[in-house]
């Protein structure tokens, strides 16, 4: 393919930003030659893996990863023929787009792991975004805004928990309805309260970027990962903490037990309802942080329905990531990357109509889910109320 549609020219990959200490030279690749090399490598891998498949052996994951990576490089080289691709910018933007998705996905993972399906991620994000903007504007304290976002996310979660755990209402119903409710409430308050008084109520101070000494000077990843705002650093912590907590602590063991087999958890003296309540609330708080990112980390003001479906993408990331915090994070990053790639490509001038470029992240996700992930098993008791006699 790359050969057939080969484009002549030089593809330039810029690897450093202007402010880096260590300046890497830009990588200049002759488009057609690189395309040929990569195609040959890809063919080789395909051959090897088809032989493995033939022999009923499993194709190792690293081989698939190498394949995907080469494919990506090949595509980038092809697409950027004759122009310059700013790699750090591409990656930085990917992370920015992924941050709320990651927070959302973490909340989704926790909530579903404990047995409560969280369709309400969108609502939690939006509530977090709204509240953080309001509180931070009024108090002029971004930290308080962050805290308020957590409380708001928790409040939404609390309703989810109360209705699904106490009143056994179908969790999907509550989730769907909560999204609508939050959209309605925030929309209402926005037009009645924030929009008319925006200088007072909708101009939150933003978090400043913090450059982490040394780390931020590492070529390529430094500017991408370590020149971020507090919320992004919180996200790193959250990903690791959630992963560690879910799989390596008593809290996580109980959480997973309740989500897999609540009755079994009950028989060993774990309070199922309380465990669910607490963890669903916690999940809401985490998602709320993601909401705060919209207003305090990213764009600096609340806008109606500004989450624009991020909660649903996060939900997809939860499933795509098979209810695992790390994998869900990777899924969110993949989505962020695909979204940003389309925007970068459309900027360096793509002959493809904008609408098709905009489809890219969604198509990538479908292919990834259908091709790589396939069947996945949710926590066994997810979505099912636990009713005691």
């Amino acid at each position, binding site marked *: 393919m790359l050969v057939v549609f080969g484009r002549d020219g030089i593809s330039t990959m810029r690897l450093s930003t202007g402010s880096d200490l260590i300046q890497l030279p830009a990588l200049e690749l002759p488009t057609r030659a690189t395309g040929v090399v990569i195609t040959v490598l890809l063919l080789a891998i395909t051959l090897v893996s088809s032989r493995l498949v033939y022999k*009923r052996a499993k194709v190792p994951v690293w081989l698939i990863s190498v394949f995907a990576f080469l494919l990506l490089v090949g595509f980038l080289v092809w697409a950027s023929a004759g122009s310059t691709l700013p790699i750090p910018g591409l990656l930085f933007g990917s992370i920015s787009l992924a941050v709320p998705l990651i927070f959302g996905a973490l909340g989704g993972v926790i909530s579903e792991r404990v047995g409560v399906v969280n369709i309400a991620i969108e609502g939690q994000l939006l509530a977090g975004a709204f509240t953080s903007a309001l509180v931070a504007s009024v108090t002029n304290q971004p930290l308080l805004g962050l805290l308020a976002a957590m409380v708001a996310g928790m409040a939404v979660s609390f309703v989810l928990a109360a209705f699904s755990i106490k009143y056994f209402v179908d969790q999907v119903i509550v989730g769907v309805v909560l999204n609508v409710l939050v959209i309605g409430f925030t929309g209402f308050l926005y037009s009645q309260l924030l929009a008319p008084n925006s200088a007072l109520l909708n101009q939150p101070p933003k978090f400043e970027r913090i450059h982490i000494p040394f780390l931020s000077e590492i070529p390529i990843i430094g500017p991408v990962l370590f020149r971020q705002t507090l919320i992004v650093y919180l996200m790193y912590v959250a990903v690791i903490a959630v992963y560690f*907590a879910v799989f*390596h*602590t*008593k*809290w996580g*063991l*109980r959480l*997973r*037990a309740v989500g*897999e*087999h609540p*009755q*079994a*958890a*009950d*028989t*060993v*003296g*774990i*309070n199922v309802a309380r465990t669910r309540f607490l963890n669903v609330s916690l999940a809401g708080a985490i998602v709320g942080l993601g909401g705060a990112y919209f207003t305090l980390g990213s764009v600096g003001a609340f806008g109606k329905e500004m989450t624009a479906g991020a909660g649903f993408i996060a939900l997809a990331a939860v499933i795509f990531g098979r209810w695992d915090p790390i994998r869900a994070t990777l899924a969110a990053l993949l989505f962020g990357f695909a979204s940003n790639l389309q925007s970068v490509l459309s900027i360096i001038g793509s002959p493809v109509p904008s609408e098709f470029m905009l489809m890219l992240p969604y198509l990538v996700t479908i292919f990834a889910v259908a091709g790589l992930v396939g069947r996945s098993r949710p926590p*066994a008791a997810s979505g099912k109320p636990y009713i*005691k*006699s």
Partner: protein
Amino acid sequence: MKLELRGITKRFGALIANDNINLVIEPGEIHALLGENGAGKSTLMNVLYGLYRAEEGEILLDDTAVHFAGPGDAMSAGIGMVHQHFMLIPVFTVAENVMLGNEQTKSGGRLDLTAARARVREISDRFGFNIDPDALVEDLPVGVQQRVEIIKALSRDARVLVFDEPTAVLTPQETDEFMVIMRQLKEEGTSIVFITHKLREVREVADRITVIRLGKVVGEALPTASNEELATLMVGRAVDLTVDKAPATPGKPALVVKNLTVIDPRGQVVVDDVSFSVAAGEILAIAGVQGNGQTELTEALMGLQPHVAGEIALDGSSLRGHSVRKVLDAGVGFVPEDRNVDGLVASFSIAENLMLDRSNQEPFVKRFNLQLDDLKTFAEETVKEFDVRSQGIETPVGRLSGGNQQKVVLARELSRPLRLFVAAQPTRGLDVGSIEFVHERIVATRDAGTPVIVISTELDEVAALADRIMVMYDGRVVGIVPGDTPRSVLGLMMAGVAPTDGTVPTDGTVPTDGTVPTDGTEPTDAAPTNSEPTASTEGAAV
């Protein structure tokens, strides 16, 4: 520790599951609880364990009244319970399951898995269990899962242990080992409540017996009581414990399986080159410890396994590679091993479940339309015929007791014209009354000239039903022996030891072809000798 239950009454809505029950468990005794399905045994134990809260009554431990708000309280008071349906998290390891609710942590709140593993090993060594603490529970055979449950209870130093039908899923060997463990525990001073439907076990191990019927204690008995006495006490009527079975009159071999090999999704060979045949009008019992390929074998017969090699022919036409639909349409009736998962749709009514595997054909479907009137008539007749006890054919089967659920499955499969009947674990978890009924129906099916395969891990059942017995071990056939082969021989075969010194044919794969087993009076001898084109000689070696 002495345990006393006084005047326990537990209602579910209008139903009184336990009605003023009094029960005393002396320290260091094994106290058996008997009762038919739905008598209220599990309910009583759940009350004791703090899972249910009784409306009336009290619990005394060493003569002091205690209140359990939940299982946590019961556990800390020294009560442990192995539940009828395992309370294990399938995706957790053994160690994780054992430590759950009782976790030890290291610095930073990390789980101390090392300590948990050590604990598992320690207990498992004490009883000679040989369990890998890092195995995932879902990968373990049920027998081993049972041990995990026991370890779980013991790891909390339980001094009163409740076993709710622990042996329902165990093989004879495992059951025997389990009894040894119970005695061992008893020696150590643990009091045990033991619930089972198997009278042999009760008489073997119990010190005292209490029988419950319809939520009330109806009597006490001693282990010296006869099976018949106990059964009558339980069911409230005389039960015929031996299956009345005329000698089989096998016809031509109907199902012929040759060199069948099944590879599971993980790429493992789970059925390895198996050959056998079943004649019309005979029951072939497939015995073996759970997990030796019997399940996959039946699934391969039914078209439920994707990777199958070899040949399966029913009345001369091949079944291999056919969809489940086609296999069913070819006249194969199937009672799956796990009725809850594979056999029934719990939220469907009895009537709907009765048409479940005829959802695309007459008489219940005509030109895409369900024939609800026909179904109703049929369901009412069938429910009567099979004595399914319920509030009507519209009752969701999820609300039936296990025995009645099993009857629904049997009724569905046996109420259409069959050319082969395959029943896996047909009486698992059923009370004696229900077992009697199921067995009668299976024999009646045979007598109607249908070839029958019964898969059972229960030697009593195998002995009661089989005309011939095929024993499987590790995916292979160990041997095919006559129906009256002694337990001891079967037990050895189930452990993979092929029968020697000519007691059984080593090439017993196709006994109907006239190779004469040396062991006297097999009904298979009467089989006509002309039908087998090739006398396969492989398949029996271990």
